[in-house]
């Protein structure tokens, strides 16, 4: 028996669902344009997202959480640079209860003063805590070095974020909510034991009359040809985190995007990648190192980066080995044999990522967000398979320049 993915455009909502083999439960994903790029104070969208469940005009925080947890509904909401992202898992029989409550939470939050005070205190503590986290510090400093202050990927210091948090008013949250919460660019994906028609009816009933907005992300472009090296000293850390990165200006719908993927995979995508083989397997310098990219799906200037962890006394050797591997990769590209392996691995990986309803829901929402037709789920392995070595190596040359790398390490390391 085969069942198709079902897709439907409701008023301001793209809805997709797939009935997987699991019974009685399902995964829910939704997103819309209410991320930090839409606010002059970058913390506001995240604070709004965390205040949603802390009381509505109908129900108190305690009542909401009781409804969710006594019905085994797991709900998580958070804001990134562009979107509010909603993830839930629930029993199929609780669909109506869930949609009713979600509608209430999203549409009529209370933003109570006392809850904002408590939340701000917890968030402040969280910000202080990440000051000791080597990975977070290296990552934030990399983004702070590469992107200008007005770019959505720029990262404020914890001190500035704490100051913003302290000056935040209930009115700021309400204003953001009124302006950015609504229909228009809402994507919803469902996978598991799903009755599409019933869900469609519920969504229509509880969200159909929500305000229609036209928030579209304005792609944030930037240029950076920095080549810097920074060490951040954090006391008492047995391992240091290292990031090396540069901007990546690439259209996610272009063929070049697909070409850079196997190239990156060969460099640092799995255990057999060049970085893992040279830096971990042969030299034993690290537990983990990889290469990846970030932030290109909405047309922004994204980031290409390498990452690794090292004992402080092995850091310099680690950086030298990573650079060596990276420079050979940019200079000579990858081989035909490596491309064949990457193609097979990526196709297999795609299949494996669809093994459960959580994986299917993640893929569905990702495809909806980049605006592709859902047939892309079938086409992706074919596109990867069709790539030529020339295309892949040209993409490396076109987009990656080892002379423009910013290197940041954080740990118990001196300058």
């Amino acid at each position: 028996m085969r069942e198709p993915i079902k897709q439907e455009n409701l008023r301001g909502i793209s809805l997709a669902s797939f009935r997987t083999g699991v019974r009685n439960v399902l995964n829910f994903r939704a997103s819309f344009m209410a991320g930090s790029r839409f606010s002059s104070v970058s913390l506001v969208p995240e604070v709004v997202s965390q205040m949603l469940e802390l009381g509505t005009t109908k129900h108190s925080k305690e009542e909401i959480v009781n409804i969710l947890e006594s019905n085994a509904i797991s709900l998580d909401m958070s804001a990134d640079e562009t979107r509010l992202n909603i993830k839930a898992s629930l029993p199929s029989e609780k669909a109506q209860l869930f949609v009713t409550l979600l509608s209430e939470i999203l549409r009529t939050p209370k933003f109570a003063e006392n809850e904002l005070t408590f939340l701000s205190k917890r968030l402040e503590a969280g910000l202080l805590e990440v000051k000791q986290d080597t990975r977070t510090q290296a990552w934030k400093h990399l983004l702070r070095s590469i992107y200008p202050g007005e770019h959505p990927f720029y990262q404020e210091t914890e001190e500035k974020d704490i100051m913003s948090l302290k000056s935040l008013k209930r009115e700021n949250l309400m204003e953001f909510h009124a302006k950015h919460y609504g229909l228009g660019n809402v994507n919803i994906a469902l996978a598991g034991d799903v009755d599409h028609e019933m869900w469609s009816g519920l969504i229509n009933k509880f969200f159909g009359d929500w305000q229609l907005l036209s928030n579209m992300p304005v792609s944030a472009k930037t240029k950076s040809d920095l080549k810097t090296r920074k060490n951040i000293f954090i006391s008492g850390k047995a391992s240091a985190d290292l990031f090396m990165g540069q901007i990546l200006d690439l259209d996610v719908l272009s063929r070049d995007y697909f070409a850079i993927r196997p190239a990156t995979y060969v460099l640092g995508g799995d255990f057999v990648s060049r970085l893992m083989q040279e830096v971990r397997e042969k030299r034993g310098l690290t537990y983990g190192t990889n290469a990846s990219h970030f932030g290109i799906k909405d047309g922004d200037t994204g980031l290409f980066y390498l990452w690794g962890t090292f004992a402080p006394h092995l850091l310099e050797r680690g950086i030298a080995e990573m650079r060596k591997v990276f420079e050979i990769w940019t200079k000579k590209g990858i081989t035909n044999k490596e491309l064949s392996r990457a193609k097979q691995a990526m196709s297999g990986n795609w299949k494996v990522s669809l093994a459960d309803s959580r994986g299917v829901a993640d893929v569905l929402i990702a495809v909806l967000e980049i605006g592709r037709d859902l047939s892309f789920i079938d086409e992706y392995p074919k596109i990867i398979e069709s790539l030529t070595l020339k295309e892949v190596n040209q993409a490396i040359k076109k987009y990656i320049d080892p002379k423009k790398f910013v290197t940041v390490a954080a740990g118990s390391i001196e300058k």
Partner: protein
Amino acid sequence: MIPLCIARNMAKTKKITKHKAFTFIQELGGISEYLHKKNGLRVLLWEDHSAPVVALNVTYLVGSRNEAVGHTGATHLLEHLMFKGSKKFNKKTGKLIDQIVFGMGAKANATTWFDRTNYWELLPSERLPELIELEADRMRGAILDEKDRASEMTVVRNEFERGENEPMEALDKEIWATAFREHPYHHPTIGWRSDIENMSIERLRQFYNTFYWPNNAYLVLTGDLPSGCLNLVEKYFGRIKPSSERIPKMYTTEPAQEGPRRITLRRAGQMPIVGIAHKIPKVLHQDQYVLDVLAGVLGKGRSSRLYRALVDPALAIDVSVNNSSFRDGGLLITYARLVSSESPEKIEKIVLREYHKIIKEGITEEELAREKYNARIQRAFTLDGPLGLSSVLNETIAGGDWRLIERFVRGINKVTLSQVRKVAEKYLSSETSTTGFFIPYKSEPRI
């Protein structure tokens, strides 16, 4: 539109109850258990053809509970070396384990814990024969080479160092080491640093030759299994002989704790952490269902008692209560990460106050109903894809009986209000507690 890669085919193959190489033991919840007649390998099969994907898992009944001073971390270091090569899969034959596994796009890894070591892969189902052959080959044919040990030691040491970076992980190690003095749950699975650095390859070979045998292992296959799956298992695993020596029993027991224990860990950091642990019985003990309910009511979710007492009023960033029970016992541990202005002593008092409320008054019917319903839904989610079920089976095998996966919901459903109060009274006594504070000394990052 029909996406072929996630097409469903619900047809199931016929269950095998007779096989020339295997004895059919039992079926429970769709999971069939077989025992290899000659070498004692146990096989668990569960079919689900809704995605063309299979999870393969080999669990060896050896973990850090089988280690002692001088070779702590041996199980884990050996697990790393198991990827370096085996008789058929090595540099000389040109068939490298990682290249084969990751080349087909499998998700794969291995993990080690107190009671077990497991090797798992989630792979496109048509590639299953290759990985069954590979797992069979490294069961007795692993190449354990000194050169590989030397380079992998520093890899594992970096894994250890990364753990040491995390205050919560460092405190957790201290609490287990204090709560368990004689039983090997005393030391962390990754081992002590000096043991990781100095353990010899001979010791690791000895460890491998003692524990890596079919009669000390389970093979778990879940998902889109091919017909004739057992024949495939027989083809590759069937030729392996059982161990000639009996697998040694771990006989050290932890004596009863005779008073509360306390530790303090001081390191650079920002936020204090409080950990309060109490001894609990082994995972197969009947009280475990009740302890699961108790842990849920105390610390699972935002409606839990400790979340409301600590996180809602912003005394803590988060709180968790874990029923961490293993083959030989374990700890019920509450961890709270505090906001910096709060004192650990105050938080400890609040946690103990909530414990005493349950000891005195029990929990409510509403709380019990919530835990029961959540257990049922949690079980339903384990059947979502082959990897979830395989992972849970790995842990129940380690605990001593894979059927725990089926008994879990029934056991939780039988829990009564009075049992929760009695069990809280029995196990949350201060006499068996170990309390740990992480006290940070302030140190600002500098560029």
